[in-house]
């Protein structure tokens, strides 16, 4: 049992120097069961519990706020000595504090330069530059080429000079996966016609061996990439600051870090300020259009596209086309004939390559925190979107449909990673 007097007069147990507090203002009584009762001693300005003035004795309950004149009284303190808080936990009716557990988580110049002088070939560079998803706004379909470069190099340079971040050892992509393309030869899907597909494969094999003697290095590909970059610089504005730009770089760095056997490209991403729904790559340069970025609903979708573009480089999809360019350069007109053959079958090459890039890209995404399954929803949305465009006059029309690609990704994730996407 305990009795505490509160007021302005020095004779009180607790003295409050507040002009609105009476000399003898309030009496607090605490019984042996730690019940707390208060009695106002006819004070001038009154005693309030939770804002309500009391005129006789009341019992205080947990969380009640006691105001005397203009002063708040921290009454729960009276229940305990400072060094003995456990008793308070007993006094008040709530469950005991929770125990702390740690949570579960947790350029080479010489060879190729003259090539760019041939305008036909220049156009070809663009055709072969591997496009990821296409379907565009019609107004943005023509490219023009011109050489010139300057400040953009510097900008990308400064990204490379990033302060090293202490990260845990990054997990690499799995190298034991198998690629199954049976999903591509399907019925009812525009652009995935078996005959075209097989014809393309055959032509490709023949051409491959035909160009066996021509060697293309990573440097050669990087040269081609620079050519494309110069062309793009003429035509587009690049966004090279801001959070979206940094976001793209951060995703790129994350994915490149997953390459098990990198060919040695110095990857750079360019954020193209254009509403086209597109992304493309050559020689380690990745061009990501703002239209595509805005189309992506989350970073996992962005990662699906970037990983796909990285894959085109790593899988050497440019190599054969580069060989043809080199041949054209060396053999003159004969090269042009080859190029025409190429044009006739571009479509089916691309489908296989696109799908191959999808799957390789998924291998890159798998060890990251991005969600593989989001690639499927992205492709699906893209193929729905595609039908909205009048694709006939669209440069990217030749690109095969996305539906089978979704299926390929799904199969790939199931058979190699035991991962099922809806």
């Amino acid at each position, binding site marked *: 049992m305990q009795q505490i007097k509160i007021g302005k007069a020095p004779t009180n147990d607790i003295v409050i120097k507040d002009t609105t507090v009476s000399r003898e203002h309030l009496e607090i009584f605490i019984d042996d069961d730690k019940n707390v009762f208060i009695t106002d001693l006819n004070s001038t300005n009154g005693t309030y519990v939770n*804002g309500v003035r009391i005129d006789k004795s009341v019992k205080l309950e*947990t969380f009640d706020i006691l105001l005397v004149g203009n002063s708040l009284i921290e009454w729960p303190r009276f229940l305990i000595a400072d060094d003995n*808080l456990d008793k308070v936990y007993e006094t008040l009716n709530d469950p005991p504090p*929770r125990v702390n*557990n740690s*949570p579960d988580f947790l350029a080479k110049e010489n060879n190729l330069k003259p090539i760019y002088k041939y305008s036909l070939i220049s156009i070809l560079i663009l055709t072969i530059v591997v496009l990821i998803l296409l379907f565009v706004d019609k107004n943005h379909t023509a490219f023009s080429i011109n050489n010139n470069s300057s400040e953009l190099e510097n900008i990308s340079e400064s990204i490379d000079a990033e302060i090293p*971040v202490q990260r845990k050892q990054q997990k690499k992509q799995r190298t034991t996966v198998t690629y199954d393309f049976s999903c591509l030869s399907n019925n009812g899907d525009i652009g995935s016609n078996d005959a075209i597909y097989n014809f393309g494969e055959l032509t490709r094999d023949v051409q491959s061996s035909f160009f066996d003697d021509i060697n293309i290095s990573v440097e050669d590909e990087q040269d081609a990439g620079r050519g494309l970059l110069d062309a793009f610089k003429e035509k587009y504005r690049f966004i090279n600051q801001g959070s*979206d730009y*940094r976001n793209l770089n951060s995703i790129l760095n994350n994915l490149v870090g997953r390459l098990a056997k990198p060919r040695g490209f110095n990857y750079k991403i360019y954020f193209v300020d254009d509403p086209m729904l597109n992304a493309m790559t050559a020689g380690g340069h990745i061009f990501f259009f703002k239209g595509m970025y805005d189309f992506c609903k989350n970073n996992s979708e962005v990662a699906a596209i970037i990983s796909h573009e990285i894959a085109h480089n790593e899988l050497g999809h440019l190599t054969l086309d580069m060989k043809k360019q080199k041949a054209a350069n060396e053999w003159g007109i004969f090269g042009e004939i080859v190029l025409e053959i190429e044009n006739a079958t571009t479509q089916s090459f691309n489908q296989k390559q696109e799908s191959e890039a999808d799957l390789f890209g998924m291998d890159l995404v798998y060890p990251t*925190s991005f969600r593989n399954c989001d690639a499927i929803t992205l492709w699906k949305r893209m193929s729905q979107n595609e039908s909205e465009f009048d694709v006939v006059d669209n440069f990217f029309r030749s690109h095969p449909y996305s539906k089978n690609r979704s299926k390929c990704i799904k199969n790939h994730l199931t058979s190699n990673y035991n991962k099922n996407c809806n």
Partner: protein
Amino acid sequence: MFPDLGAKYIHVKEIGTGGTGIVNLAVDTHTGFQVAVKSLFKSHFENNPAMLKRFRIEANIYLMLSHPNIVKLKNFILKDGAHLVMDYIEGMTLEEYIRTVTGPIPSEVAIAIIKDIASAIGYAHQKKIPIAGYNGVLHLDIKPNNILISDSGKVMVIDYGISQGTKEDRMDQIVGSLMYMAPEQLDIDSTLDHRTDIYALGVLLHQMLTGITPYSSKKSKEDIIQYILNDPLERLIDIYPQVDNRLQEIIDIATSKNPDNRFKDCEDFINSLENISYAAN
């Protein structure tokens, strides 16, 4: 909308609304001081008694925390709802301050501000209060909107409304202030401790130094969650090259994914900030 609180309080104007209540500016006619009245109306908690309890705990926390950088309780009224009467701080939130006044805050100033905040947060961590479940008071919702910068330059911590809280409280919060959350806060079943607040202090410092909200580039809530769980905050220097990069290490420690790798307490955090010296101008 201002509640009828009797003759003691005269309404001046509404100064803010939130999901659960309204904040009004009023004058206490007995003292002549301006007060901020945060009101939770009956309709808000009629079907959710836990909400009222949380509000009453908040009042008790303010009552028991006495620190120059923590806003003070003046009264609590249970009438036509529940109303917290607090000291009114003339000024703006740190969020508004960064957004409209400073942009990136010079390192020296940012250090001074974060030290005040950390000192208040650390004081509360040490404070034993007689409410079950509270062995030291965690804030758990440290963000620029819950820090006030007064016109005279004083830094005040507000909103102990979530503090420890129940699972439901924390669910609500995950919806609210994702960006400042530590990885362990995203796991609703984990138990939090003072190091969770230290993580948020690190994020807050990052925002002050760069002038932009963390993860501003992320496209969706899922992206933010993935980044919180897996990636370090963006490098200061990438965002704002003029930054004092010595602060990067401090932020990295404070925002370690594993609480064991963070500063052990606010004092430790403040000490390392003090070790960064500036030549006198």
